């Protein structure tokens, strides 16, 4: 069945009495149990990340709460203050469960904020290019093409070599790597939308270009953007973890999941698997759930693909 996008004018569907585009979209999405599972897990993870400080047994970054005498304890061991390290502790006596909760917060935070920033930039550039056309468009799209022809990791690597270390620098590098994807997607969709009658109508009504661009053109470019954004958040999280692993990502003061894994890397061979194993699982589950959701969104929002 073809998925119908909101602007295409919904043909009257026979089943539901109040069929809205969103309901239809939700129904399509819920068709895949895998995607639903992904969504549930993802919501859970986001929930954990949001309330991490309230549900963690320990604030893993309050130096007063750490005691190295509690270091490297296996899962299930009891700490000196009396609570149990369900997932073990790292070399500093940091509870891994709390560490993962906080790590999720940082990884998701970095991933989402870089994706949002990149989206904002990419959207503006893409819309502007599509709307302006001509030489401006040619130039902007050339920049996008050139940027996209280089692998993300190479660009991030060089940028971080040049910028140095720091949370904001990592975000800046991730934004630089991502914005072009959004710009290209927006511009592609906008070009198609621009030729449609409702835009011409809006222009004929004498609405300002700005208004047409942001109030009319933009909402209709959203579906493909959502798909790109989901995938990009997963990419950003994975890339950040990789950069942190290589030692040129986040500083130790903001320990993302990637950093936790890197930290436990050296303990793996000595049998203290829990230090990097559990953060690795958390990272994997996060990325997989985002990808599952993104995958289904692509199928649902892409009218070309038939189920």
């Amino acid at each position, binding site marked *: 069945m073809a998925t119908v996008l909101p602007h295409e004018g919904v043909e009257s569907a026979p089943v539901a009495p109040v069929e809205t585009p969103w309901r239809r979209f939700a129904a399509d999405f819920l068709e895949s149990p895998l995607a639903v599972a992904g969504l549930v897990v993802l919501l859970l993870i986001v929930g954990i990340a949001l309330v991490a400080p309230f549900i963690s047994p320990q604030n893993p970054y309050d*130096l007063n709460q750490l005691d190295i005498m509690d270091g490297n304890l296996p*899962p299930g061991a009891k700490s000196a203050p009396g609570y149990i390290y369900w997932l073990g502790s790292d*070399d500093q006596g940091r509870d891994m469960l709390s560490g993962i909760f906080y790590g999720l917060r940082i990884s998701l935070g970095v991933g989402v904020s870089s994706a949002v920033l990149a989206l904002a930039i990419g959207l503006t550039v893409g819309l502007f290019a599509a709307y302006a056309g001509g030489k401006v468009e040619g130039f902007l799209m050339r920049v996008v093409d050139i940027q996209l022809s280089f692998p993300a990791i190479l660009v991030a690597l060089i940028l971080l070599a040049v910028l140095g270390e720091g949370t904001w620098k990592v975000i800046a590098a991730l934004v630089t790597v991502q914005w072009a994807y959004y710009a290209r997607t927006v511009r592609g969709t906008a070009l198609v939308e621009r030729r449609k009658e409702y835009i011409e109508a809006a222009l004929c009504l004498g609405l300002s270009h700005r208004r047409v661009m942001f109030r009319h053109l933009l909402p209709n470019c959203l579906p493909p953007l959502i798909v790109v954004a989901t995938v990009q958040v997963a990419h950003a999280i994975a890339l950040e973890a990789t950069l942190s692993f290589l030692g040129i990502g986040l*500083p130790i*003061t903001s320990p993302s999941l990637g950093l936790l894994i890197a930290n436990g890397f050296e303990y793996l061979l000595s*049998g203290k698997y829990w230090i990097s194993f559990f953060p690795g699982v958390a990272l994997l589950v996060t990325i997989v759930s985002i990808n599952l959701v993104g995958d289904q969104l692509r199928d649902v929002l892409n009218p070309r693909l038939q189920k």
Partner: protein
Amino acid sequence: MNRMSWRVLAGAFAAAMISIANPFAIGPAGAQDLTIGLGANVTSIDPHFHNLSPNSNVATHIFDKLIDQDEQQKLVPGLATEWKSLDDTTWEFKLRRGVKFHDGSDFTADDVVATLKRVPWVPNSPSSFRIYTQAITAHEIVDPFTIRFKTAAPYPLLPTDLSTVFIVSKKNEQAPTGDFNNGKAAIGTGPFKFVEYVPGDRIVVTRNDAYWGKKPEWAKATLKLITNNSARVAALLAGDVQLIEAVPATDYAKLKTNANVALSQIVGNRVIYLHVDSYRDQTPFATDKAGAVLPNNPLKDARVRKALSKAINRPAISERIMEGLAIPAGGVLAEGFFGSSPKLKPEAYDPEGARKLLTEAGYPNGFGLTIHGPNDRYPNDEKVLQAVGPMFNRIGIDTKVVTQPWATFASQGSAPNYAYSLMLVGWGAGTGEVSSPLRSLLMTVGPGRGGSNRGRYSNAKVDELTNQALATVDDAKRDKLLQEATEVAMADVGLIPLHYQINVWGTRKGLTYKPRADEYTLAMSVSRSN
């Protein structure tokens, strides 16, 4: 995968496979061949290009020095059979006879002179060996096997300095670094001959059958550069290499119980310590609890520095973070090295006493402090610093920990930037005696002095005693002066020592490595057990 199934699976397969797989793993390397996993990158085969310990480690295989350092860094005859000071500023060296370079030419005093000329000449050197030869103002060849050196002032460290300088053939006095890397000029008198150098990957050498000293047991040695700790351990476990250096603390306990591996260890010449800014009136990272920089630098007060030292639980760091691969330090070089004082014991862990000292100094509620350190330089550097943070917190000092790659840390924390207030650094005494850390870390910054004194500590008494020691040729007197200077500096907490590192090597079973205090990993020191 849960823990149980992982263990069961791994255990079962390991038991079944190791006996079958290992002969294949060692296969290509025969009984006469040795493969070593080195932990730090080598930047050149030219022994005079870069004053860097991994380079000298490799060069030791191919080249000889006038004077060698043994496992404990005591001076022993090398290409010079004996040396003595004729007067306060003249030294005479007798050279070994009958030594041949790898190309068959004879070794004479001319080669020594050529080496002295080449050392300061090497183009583009990022760190030259000139600092070890500059004391020599003139030389005189008495006969082909006797040479005399003149120094401008009494300089007892000349033999020590020369024990770091590799002798090259006079033919290669003007040879560029590239000629050493491709082997054309890599001609020494050492126990091994150069075969191949692949930058960043490996160095291959073969036995020099005409070597003047004890011939190595191995016909061929391959030095593989495996800088990643886990990869290096994995290579040993898999049998790809037969010896690795710098066994990481994290794998130490595991390897100790592994039946296929033998470990050897020794207390090294490196101290890990905290450098404290005791120079500035206002130091950038000592703040009040709200984060405003304090008008007076609390770290200038020796009582505050003492309090910080008392706050540190050294045994806990050595046992937990370093997993037993460190011993708590009270000085700048471990006991047993020349000039180290047996009186200097590590400061006991005493948070109560620390609080009392802080109150005395006028900080009953403590203050705020950010401490800096590298995260890729010393074993567990980042973790040690992270562990120090909570300890300072416990005596009321709100501590933030910042770690950076050495590249950033070193250029910010050193002269002329001196950007930090308290920082973790390490110091390996290349000379194997105490004047090295005293001169570089604790003497007032000035020409030839205090080169790595990142806290800019200055104490006239320490300067005086050390200068006196550096001008005393008599060993017993110098030993005493060095001990005294260190004791003065430590009583004043010129820096806060944490621990001395223990160097560990891992070999496949059946081989033994004679451990070295200078962290060198030499194919000559590997032998078959029994």
